[in-house]
């Protein structure tokens, strides 16, 4: 509405009688504020301040009242009187009543009129705590918004979930809209490498605001693409000023991975050549060398060399942690200039930026350059043209393959120096003959230096987006606007499986793949907006339509079996394969909305939208989304006690929904032209298409209150929502016997109900401003119906003898099932078992496994909270944030790797002095069990007699071997890790000291002799340390939020120094 009002300003015939000039500054730092709206109260005459905070406005008379409003500041009113020069100081406030947020379709609305929860993050937040990855800035800030980083750094993608999983298997990421145009946020991966997404191509310094629309009522106008919430990004635009305003932002940061292997045991090494604990080290490699089940490290010189190399003597001791030795310090450097200026009718902003990122993973980096141009022109009195173009080019080298590093760095013997694996100086990870330097007889293990330096995935990504919008003021109360946006993402990928890794492509002869993918999206929308006030009733109505066309093409060529060794060019291939990929889809929509407000305290909104999808059969492809909402600002209607500053009640109902991905309704065969011995072959796909797919629907009720006390010193914003998705489009896992691995079906219903609370406290304000913010959210997900079946598979892992993640009717999503040790009357049950080793049978103990898998927990954290505090004094700003999530369990595959190899501290108990089992064992029969205290059993201990350090297995009384490493290996590895889940299932909760920052704005007195307007330096530290993390060797905050953490890289810790100067 404000937008509308501003537009009208141009239409009035102004009979100016007096000109008032002035400057607007902020009270906390005395710095000029640019873009402050200056309005003559009761009229539509207005202007805004330039970059130096200066304004000029014509007022009708001395009685005129000027209103100064700015996002984040308390609005001030000043009666002009006989003054002609005004000096205005605005007070900063997080709790401004006249805040305006960008809502659906780019419509700016006053916060108080909203019937739903919407949160805006200002560009300032990006400046205060900069991060090259846009989404990291949002982390922990907004109740109900969950950001899960893959741990793959600046070049990697983030998974964002708003108000729980709307679908049990679709991508639950929100829709991103930049300057009114939805963007393609295709994230992809190749061979386990995260290729990032479109958000990694955006320069955070170009962002003016980011609005997070959480509920369906907020997003209903976006229809199908918004059932997971919408994040609206508005980029900066030019402002009127004298000359050109130039600003510079530069930052330098360092980044390190937080070593995930904090639970690596350092006491015991690999066993001797017989696999026992004799101190004869392996002279020839075998599988045993990777298993740390040997005797205690004693620093003995074994008199032999690693790989027969005399410079690499094997000293039986723990070497530097492989993670720390392998990873390096990463860094980020960004330089960013922006220029802006303009007159009343022509405004522009240009920004250029350069970012250089070096990942903590060796030989991995990314460079990004962006150019942005935005112009805003007024032609005559009625036409406004807004045009934006953005070009971003990024080049990434060797995007990390998390699983490979996480596995390899957990299985290299800890008695080795990982530097030994570097191999040739000129070619890391290789032997003199150029082939990979193996560190195991297992051909599948890849040398991590080979992974980092020889195998590679390089990509160049160009993202161009341009949009233009035209606004035509038909009458003072009606305008029409049309917009078109085109976005193209071109990615050129070169993927090299280096020649020389035996288990690589075609017996180690390498493979080079080159492909180019083009993702194009054209959005058009058109609307008519009506706004008129009839005495105390204001009506705003809008009708419009839009169309979206998406198109994807991929052309690739892969060359296998390279002819000239180590020459990684696709034309050097013995065998060439070409591939093409293609998809296109479209959505047509019409929509309308109406908002009626009465006397500034009741706002009633209704919207409707209809979408037609190309991806569904014509009979099923139409869906209508209505929404209604009420905002009641009771503090504007009644006289409340003095301390009660503001009170609002809101309620809304909305329906959204959507179609499926392209061609889900058709089954396609795959064709192999090369086939077998020259005969081409045809095969069936692994998953089933569904010609009868229906759109899915989500409906949501939301209600909330917004209360502020003591002049906004205390603020409470509470929301409750009840969201239900029906006819969900789901990919279900099928048994192999059905012939197919998965099927796409409309299946059942899922519900999410939750509470969101944002609490703001300002204990001190004035010269010192101290503020605290608490955001808490609780989301209860429940699977309501699965179309007649009681459960569907949602993932599995082989850890702990087999973990299944399922969606079960009546339960929270992502229920984790696994095998557990049988318990009788609170006592763990053990059984005697025989394992065969070296041709002899050994007796040992292992847990009795419950025959059926039991429910171990749920994979999604229902609770999330953050606490932020900040203090501002003069030009100094200090802030800190902790955040956390709790209530989930996770099956951690990395721990299985660590237990398999005896590397986890979990495998330590008993190794020194014996393991005395507690519990019971069955002395009866299987049919009629009699449980007896295990301590009455003969030989109920494992490794009771460490003194009997037998070099070779010797059978003593009762076939018991007093001390044999195989007992521990079998007890922990075979008995536990491979059979029951106890050691690999963890509490998935975490709390992190997420961020601390300090900023300093140089006072005027210092810079007054410099040719600058303002200088700000800040320093931010992210992910300083874990406050709560129960994973022995991993990070629950990264890698999947569906119950299985499959070897994700941990969070990285970074320190960034930022300098920003306005000239």
């Amino acid at each position, binding site marked *: 509405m404000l937008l509308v009002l501003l537009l009208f300003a141009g239409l009035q015939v102004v009979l100016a009688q007096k000109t008032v000039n002035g400057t607007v500054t902020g009270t906390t730092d005395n710095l000029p504020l640019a873009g402050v709206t200056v309005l003559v109260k009761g009229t539509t005459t207005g202007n805004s301040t330039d970059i130096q905070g200066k304004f000029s406005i014509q007022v009708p008379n001395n009685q005129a009242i000027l209103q100064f409003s700015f996002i984040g500041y308390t609005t001030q009113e000043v009666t002009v009187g006989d003054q002609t020069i005004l000096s205005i100081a605005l007070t900063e406030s997080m709790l401004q009543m006249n805040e305006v947020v960008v809502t659906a379709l780019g419509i700016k609305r006053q916060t108080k009129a909203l019937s739903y929860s919407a949160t805006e993050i200002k560009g300032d937040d990006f400046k205060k705590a900069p991060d090259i990855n846009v989404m990291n800035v949002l982390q922990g800030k907004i109740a109900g918004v969950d950001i899960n980083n893959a741990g793959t750094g600046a070049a990697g993608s983030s998974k964002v979930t708003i108000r729980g999983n709307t679908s049990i298997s679709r991508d639950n990421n929100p829709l991103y809209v930049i300057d009114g145009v939805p963007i393609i946020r295709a994230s992809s991966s190749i061979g386990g490498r995260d290729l990032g997404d479109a958000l990694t191509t955006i320069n955070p310094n170009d962002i003016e605001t980011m609005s997070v629309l959480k509920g369906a009522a907020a997003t209903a106008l976006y229809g199908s693409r918004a059932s997971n919430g919408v994040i609206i990004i508005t980029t900066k635009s030019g402002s009127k000023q004298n000359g050109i305003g130039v600003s510079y932002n530069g930052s330098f940061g360092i980044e390190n991975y937080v070593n995930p292997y904090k639970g690596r045991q350092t006491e015991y090494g690999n066993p001797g050549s017989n696999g026992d604990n004799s101190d004869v080290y392996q002279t*020839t490699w*075998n*599988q045993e060398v990777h298993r740390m089940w040997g005797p205690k490290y004693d620093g003995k010189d074994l008199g032999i060399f690693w790989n027969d190399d005399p410079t690499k003597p094997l000293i039986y001791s723990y070497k530097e942690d492989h993670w720390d030795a392998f990873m390096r310090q990463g860094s980020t450097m960004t330089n960013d200039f922006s220029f802006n200026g303009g007159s009343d009718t022509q405004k522009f902003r240009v920004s250029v930026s350069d970012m250089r990122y070096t990942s903590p993973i060796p030989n991995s980096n990314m460079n990004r350059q962006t150019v942005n141009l935005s112009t805003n022109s007024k032609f005559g009195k009625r036409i406004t043209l807004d045009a934006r173009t953005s070009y971003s080019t990024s080049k990434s080298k060797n995007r990390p393959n998390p699983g490979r590093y996480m596995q390899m760095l957990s299985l290299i013997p800890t008695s080795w120096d990982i530097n030994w694996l570097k191999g040739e100086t000129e070619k890391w990870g290789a032997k003199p003959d150029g*082939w990979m330097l193996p560190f195991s*007889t297992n*051909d599948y293990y890849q040398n991590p230096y080979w992974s980092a330096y020889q195998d590679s995935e390089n990509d160049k990504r160009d993202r161009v987006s341009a949009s233009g919008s035209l606004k035509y003021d*038909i*009458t003072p109360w009606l305008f029409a606007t049309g917009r078109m946006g085109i976005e193209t993402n071109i990615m050129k990928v070169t993927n090299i499986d280096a020649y020389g890794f*035996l288990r690589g492509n*075609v*017996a*180690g*002869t390498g493979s080079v793949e080159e492909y180019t993918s083009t993702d194009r999206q054209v959005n058009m929308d*058109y609307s*008519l907006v009506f706004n008129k006030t009839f005495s105390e009733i204001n009506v705003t109505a809008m*009708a*419009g*339509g839009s*169309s979206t*066309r998406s198109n994807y093409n991929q052309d690739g060529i892969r060359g*296998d*079996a390279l002819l000239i060794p180590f020459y990684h060019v696709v034309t050097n291939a013995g*065998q060439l394969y070409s591939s093409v990929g*293609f*998809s296109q*889809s*479209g959505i*047509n*929509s*019409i929509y309308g909305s109406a908002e009626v407000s009465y006397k500034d305290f009741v706002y009633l909104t209704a919207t409707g939208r209809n979408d037609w999808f190309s991806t569904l059969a*014509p009979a099923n*492809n139409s869906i209508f989304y209505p929404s209604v909402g009420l905002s009641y600002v009771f503090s504007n209607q009644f006289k409340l006690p003095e301390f009660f500053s503001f009170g609002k009640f809101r309620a809304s109902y909305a329906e959204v929904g959507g179609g499926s991905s*392209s*061609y889900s309704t*058709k089954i396609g*065969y795959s*064709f192999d032209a090369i086939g*077998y*011995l020259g005969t*081409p*072959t*045809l095969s*069936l796909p692994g998953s*089933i*298409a569904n010609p009868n797919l229906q759109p899915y629907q989500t409906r949501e009720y939301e209600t909330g209150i917004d209360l502020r006390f003591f002049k906004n010193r205390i603020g409470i914003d509470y929301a409750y929502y009840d969201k239900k998705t029906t006819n969900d489009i789901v990919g279900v896992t*099928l*048994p*192999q*016997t*059905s*012939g*197919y*691995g998965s*099927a796409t079906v409309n299946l059942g219903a899922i519900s999410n109900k939750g509470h969101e609370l944002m609490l703001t406290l300002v204990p001190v304000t004035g010269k010192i401003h101290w503020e605290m913010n608490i955001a808490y959210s609780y989301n209860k997900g429940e699977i309501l119906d699965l179309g007649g079946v009681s459960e569907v598979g949602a993932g599995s892992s082989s850890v702990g003898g087999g973990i299944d993640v399922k969606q079960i009717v009546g339960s929270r999503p992502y229920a984790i099932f696994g095998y557990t040790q049988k318990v009788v009357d609170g006592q763990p049950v053990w059984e005697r078992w025989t394992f*065969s080793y*070296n*041709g002899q*049978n050994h007796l040992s103990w292992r847990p009795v496994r419950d*025959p*059926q898998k039991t429910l171990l927990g749920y994979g999604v954290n229902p609770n999330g909270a953050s606490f932020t505090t900040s203090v501002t004094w003069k030009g100094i700003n200090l802030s800190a944030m902790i955040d956390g999530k709790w209530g989930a369990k996770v099956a951690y595959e990395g721990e299985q790797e660590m237990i398999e190899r005896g590397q986890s501290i979990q495998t330590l108990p008993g190794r020194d002095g014996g393991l005395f089992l507690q519990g019971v064992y069955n002395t009866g029969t299987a049919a009629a069990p009699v449980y007896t205290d295990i301590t009455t059993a003969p030989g109920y201990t494992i490794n009771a007699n460490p003194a009997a350090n037998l070099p070779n297995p010797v059978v003593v009384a009762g076939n018991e071997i007093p001390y044999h490493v195989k007992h521990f290996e079998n007890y922990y590895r075979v008995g536990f890790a491979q059979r029951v889940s106890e050691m690999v299932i963890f509490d998935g909760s975490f709390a992190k000291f997420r961020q601390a920052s300090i900023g300093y704005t140089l006072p005027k007195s210092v810079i007054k002799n410099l040719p600058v307007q303002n200088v700000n330096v800040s320093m931010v530290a992210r992910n300083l340390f874990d406050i709560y993390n129960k994973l022995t060797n991993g990070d629950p905050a990264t890698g999947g939020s569906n119950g299985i953490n499959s070897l994700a890289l941990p969070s990285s810790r970074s320190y960034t120094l930022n300098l920003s100067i306005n000239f």
Partner: protein
Amino acid sequence: MKNIKYKIFVLVSLLILGGYACNTEELKILDDPKYLLTPANSDMSMMFTNILINHGRGAVGGNQIRLEGGYVKYYATYSNLMQMGGQFQFDQGLNDSPWGVYGGSLKMAIALEDYLVKLNNPNMVNNLAMTRIMKVAIIQRLTDFYGDIPVTEAGLAYISGNMKPKYDKQQDIYKYMLETLDAEAQNLSTAAALVPYNWKGASDAKSIRDIIYAGDMVKWKKFAYSMMLRLAMRSSDADAAMAKTYAEKAIAGGVITANSDNWVIKTKDGTINGEKNPFSSFFEGSPSGDPERYLKLGEYFVDFLKAKTDPRRKVIFGGRLLNTITAVTAGDMQKYWRDVTKWDYDIILAKGMIHGTNANPAPSLAAYHQTYTSPNPFLFTMDMSICVLSAAEMNYLIAEATLKGWSTGTTADLAYAAAITASMTQLSAFAGLLATQKITAGEITAYITANPLGTGAAAKQRLAEEMWVSLYLDPTEAWFNVRRMNLSLPTNVSGSVMPVKYAYVENERSNNLVNLNSALTQIGLDVAVSRETEIAKRCWWDVN
């Protein structure tokens, strides 16, 4: 003037908006994918080729050598990683792998059958018959591994929407397979018009898609009757009456009795792993391969062949490493593998590796290779063809049926002699063999004379032993026959006995638990049965 402009604007706007709503035609065009292959625009005969490839190549490989090769004592090693079968150990991965045909060859056979049935083209009776015969061949191997399995409801997820197939009893599966073979053997027509095996009518596709018999319907008919004889004899202990009916029907119809009619799929040496012989790839190992992982011939097998002075020793026995090589390290074995200067190929001094140990019985790794005989590397060349059903097996089965007094039109002794001849000629026909490793006609005759079939129980024992030796290149079928014919093989050092079933797979436990549990109950096992107990459970035809 102002008013008119405004009205035009509104009018145009409404027209544009209205346009969106009815423009569904364009949406339809958008959903028309460029590259999607459907039965309508593809050549479904290529799917038949794929079924043949998957079935043929699925018959042998590292898994079969490691499990069944160890079960039936062909191979032994002390390497923990390689001797799952020799140790009678359970390994989930190896155990689950044959089940994969549900998403591979079996699914394709079911889809193709459905396509052809719906097409209902009288000119494609042969295509349908061949598809169904292959479907039976795939199911036979699967049920003989696992026992009761889903058949009637399997692979139907796309066709009928059945996503959780129930398990059929093996008895019913056998009945279905025999009836199908009976019907389809009769449906196969040699009529000239029906012989072309092509879907799209292209003349060059005449027989190329049939990479086994090149469109020769006479041979397909023989294969159908041969499968019938195999199935009949396999069920002979469980249902003698049914077995007799079908065995006689099969023999009367004509089974494969000459090696030229064997169901054989070619492989090719070269750069494409998927075209090389998977059996040979396993034996050849890798350039950095651990020397202890190279399998040896098993002691019992070697001693058995030596005791009979079986001429097949020449083909089956490889060498023992020369004493002059005192150390072997990673990668050496692959280099030495086919190097005749490194080995002593003396078949008299040949020695088999003891079974079921995981300690090197020799003092060193080099001594291990010097002491124990390797499989013959010249038999396992990368272009060695894979035989799924042979004349030797059929002749043994005819001999067995004759001994039972069933009508076969020949004598047991004649069939027995023909079987041995077929087995020996088939083995020595491999191109990679050294000249000295070929078996002569004289040696074959001498062997038959020295080892007559005999009568009664001795004859049965002789047939079981011969079948076992002859199926050396197909350890899986060898294991099926050892189970059925009750050939007694030694237990291993720890006293454990040979598994007689594969356990049901983990995938079913995760995704089809209800039906899996009823299958377990149906065969008399508790749903919570351990895998180790399950693999000792005999299937329907394995009467004792």
